C-alpha cells in the first residue's frame, strides 16, 4: 500500500488535514494553528498547489491583504484516498503478519 508522498510529509499532512475540515482557511489561521513560520507554510502550500491539491487565493479585507487556502476537488479526493489507505493499514490484523512470517 502506497501512501501519497505529497500528503504524507509531516507538515503537509497537517496542512491538508486542517483544510479538509474547512471550505477555506486564512493563511494566518493555518500558520498559527500549526505553529509554523510564514516561510515554512508558504513553501509547503506552494508544493501542494503545484501538485494540484490546494488553491491559494489572495484578496483584501478593507485595505488589509488576505490569503486564503482551500483544498481543490483533486486534493480532497487525494486526502480521502490517503485516509482510506491509512485505515486499511491500521485495520490489518496482526495474524496476517505472523502468517506471512511463517
Amino acid at each position: 500500500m502506497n501512501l501519497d508522498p505529497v500528503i504524507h510529509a509531516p507538515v503537509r499532512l497537517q496542512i491538508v488535514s486542517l483544510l479538509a475540515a474547512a471550505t477555506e482557511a486564512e493563511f494566518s489561521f493555518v500558520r498559527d494553528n500549526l505553529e509554523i513560520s510564514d516561510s515554512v507554510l508558504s513553501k509547503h502550500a506552494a508544493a501542494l498547489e503545484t501538485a494540484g491539491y490546494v488553491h491559494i487565493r489572495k484578496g483584501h479585507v478593507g485595505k488589509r491583504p488576505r490569503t486564503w487556502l482551500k483544498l481543490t476537488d483533486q486534493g480532497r479526493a487525494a486526502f480521502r484516498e490517503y485516509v482510506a489507505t491509512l485505515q486499511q493499514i491500521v485495520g490489518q490484523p496482526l495474524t496476517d503478519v505472523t502468517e506471512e512470517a511463517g
Partner: protein
Amino acid sequence: MDRMPNAAEALAEIERTQQKAFAGQRLPLWWLPAVVALITVVSIAFDLHGATRSVLLIGAALGLAVMTAVLALRARVKSRRQVWTPRAAAWASAWLLSFFVLFGVTPPLVWLVTDSAIWPKIISGVVVSLYGVMTIRWAERQIMADTQGKVAQ
C-alpha cells in the same frame, strides 16, 4: 511532528490537527452580550412610540449589522458541515434553546416585584447576557467533545 509518521500516528495527527483547528474558532466573549443587548433594545422599542421607537429600532438594526460584519471580518476559517455529529448538533441546539427559555422565564419573575413593562426586559437581557458569557466556553467544549473521533475529509 518532524519525522515521517507511521499509519496510526498519521491518523492520530489528522484528528489532533482538526480538533485543534476547531478549538481555535471560538466566539469572542463580548459578542454574545452585545447581540443580546441589541435584541433587548428591539424588544423595549416595541413598547415605545414615535421617534424614540424609530431611533431605537434603527440603532439596533445597525448594531446587529455591525456585529454580523465584525464576526465575518474576524472569521479566518470557513468550516464544513460534515464535521458536525448529531450529538454535537443536539448540544448546540439545546444550548441555544436555553436562551429562549431564559428570555421567556425571566420577565414573569420580575413582574412579581414590578408592574413596569420595560424593566423585565432589561433584567431579562442582563440575565441572558450573563448566562451566555458563563456558559459559552462550556458549551463549546461539549460540542467539541462530540466531534472527536470523526475525521473530516
